[in-house]
């Protein structure tokens, strides 16, 4: 088993851990974190594949960079929705 393959397998494991978190945990912020862990797992599979050959493959690098930006965007959007929902909930709790 090469080093790259090991990284790939652990990337899948990370994906699984994240997936379990998304499905099992009810707390929204933790769900968002779990989705990010999922994402990191997927990126690791990409990177592991990129380095499995003799020369590094740059296309997966670029794809991961794009993927990171998209993940940042999605996370920010989810968090902003959480913040807005919380802001709507607060007055009710106070009343």
């Amino acid at each position: 088993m090469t080093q790259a393959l090991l990284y790939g397998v652990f990337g899948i494991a990370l994906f699984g851990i994240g997936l379990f978190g998304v499905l099992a945990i009810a707390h929204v912020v933790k769900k968002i974190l779990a989705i990010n862990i999922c994402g990191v797992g997927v990126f690791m599979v990409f990177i592991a594949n990129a380095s499995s050959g003799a020369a590094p493959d740059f296309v997966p690098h670029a794809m991961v960079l794009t993927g990171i930006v998209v993940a940042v965007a999605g996370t920010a959007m989810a968090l902003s929705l959480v913040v807005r929902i919380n802001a709507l909930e607060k007055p009710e709790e106070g009343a």
Partner: protein
Amino acid sequence: MFNNMTLSDSAQQEADLPGSVLLIIGMVVVAACLFLAMSLVQFQSTDQPLVTLVVSNLEQSGVENPVTAVLLNFRSYDTLLEVAVLLIVALAVMPFSLQDTRLPFIKVSEPVERSLVLEAFLRWLLPAIIVTSGYLLWTGAVLPGGAFQAGALLAGAGILLLLAGHHSFNFNAPTARLLLVVGLAMFLLVGAGVVLSSGIALAYPVAMAGMLILVIEVAATITIAAVLVLLFCALQIEPLGPQPNRVEKEKHS
């Protein structure tokens, strides 16, 4: 699983699923991952045609860093859409109001209490960050670096400025909206403009490729920095920041 999400701050997380369901989910996830891992291990990687393709076409891409070449030349369309993704998120989180459109982008307020150390430090740090960001942008053509890294650093400068407490950003101002779209607009403009010379959208003429990529990257850096600062404002300042502070200040005065 998604139907009873809790949004509580941290105190109550009891809405979790019962143990038996957790066990089933866990087993399904483990089984799926094992299958994925097994199929990955069994498969022997063959050739990677893109490795040689990227290297052999690098000279015509206008940059020397292969990752930048892929991002901004070979697969520039992906990056174009990625800038659109950033614009979507910016619009989604923007605290918008119709009144604010007349106000300027950056509002400087007279500080209530001054911290000399902080101000002096920022005076040194902010220009340094901006220069470093420019360097990262420039070096992206040869070494790891590029628009996103530079934009993230620039956004850091913006956030520092914000946290120092004298400045606030109004993203409904016309300037701010221009900053948010300039990356996408420049990308489209260049992508469409090159049709005149090469006949194909996004296909830069080899001689000008480096310059055009830099133009796109400068615009993208500005947009990325603006979007990231906006995200920070939307997530941090609005719900937590000003209100308690303001109350405190009123008490003082």
